[in-house]
């Protein structure tokens, strides 16, 4: 199982800031969230696995932490 953390608008759309999924890679995590919460589709965000930014689909192992962080613009 992997622990998925959501921040900002992403957490608001999903109604919670934390999910536990049994999924194999980061693409599958994003696909599941966008299917379950279509409002997420137009949003862009950085993806970190165990607090390391990833730029390509990344295979996940048990107890990995996936954080989805959108850019903010308030100042």
């Amino acid at each position: 199982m992997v622990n998925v953390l959501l921040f900002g608008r992403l957490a608001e759309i999903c109604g919670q800031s934390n999910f536990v999924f049994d999924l194999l890679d980061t693409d599958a995590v994003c696909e599941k969230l966008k299917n379950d919460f279509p409002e997420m589709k137009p949003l862009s965000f950085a993806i970190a696995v165990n607090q390391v930014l990833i730029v390509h689909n990344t295979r996940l192992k048990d107890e990995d932490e996936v954080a989805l962080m959108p850019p903010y613009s308030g100042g």
Partner: protein
Amino acid sequence: MDGYFRRHIQLNEIGEAGQQKLLDSRILVIGAGGLGCPLLLNLASCGVGSITVIDFDTIEYHNLHRQALYAPGDVGKPKAECAVHFLTERYPHSRFSSVHAMFDAQMAVSMVSEADLLVDCTDNLQVRYLLDDAARIYQKPWVHASVSKFNLQWALFRPHVGYSYRNVFPVPPNPMFMGQCNTEGIMGAVPALAGTLQANLVLNALLGLDEVDGKIFHMDTRTGQTLCIKYEAMPVAKPQNEVELLNFDYQGFCQNFDV
């Protein structure tokens, strides 16, 4: 040096030489709002010697709950000028100047090369990407922070050695879905916290004490959860020089998104 900075100088990591380094430093601060006010207070009181404040905006009554440099009597006046007036009265070790204008590529070309470090305290994505590019071209570090409701993110970038905002967020988000303080509201202390964390990064960077290359920080202030996300240095394709910077269409870039 008089006793004003005694508690700084007591730190082995700073000492008289470090304090002199701060007094000799020149920085550009873009934005004198929710982030800029606490940042400027911290940097001016710590003796950063030359501070230029750039902001196109004027003070509105609803700014006052989080922009502590301004008083009700300042409403309607330019932020950059009011901020510099406030700081000049209180912080005798620093020199301040104000520019009441929108930061653009022309301004970047004329001002960035003279500064030691740049700070983005705006709520503007075009300025953020412009600053990231200008910092890379002129080989300057820059400090970022931004907020959304109860959350903040902040980082020191050195784009000329590959640590760039574009590495973390290569494509600007669709502005239709970006929250802003003026549309979604903001917890007053959140930009104060972010601006202070930004100021701390500025001081560390000017003193050569920072150890944050390749890291961007995020905090959810309601849970206290803080992330330190690491990323690899990567090259950025364009713009690569002054001419390309002046010709880069930041407005188009920040509105060109896939939905």
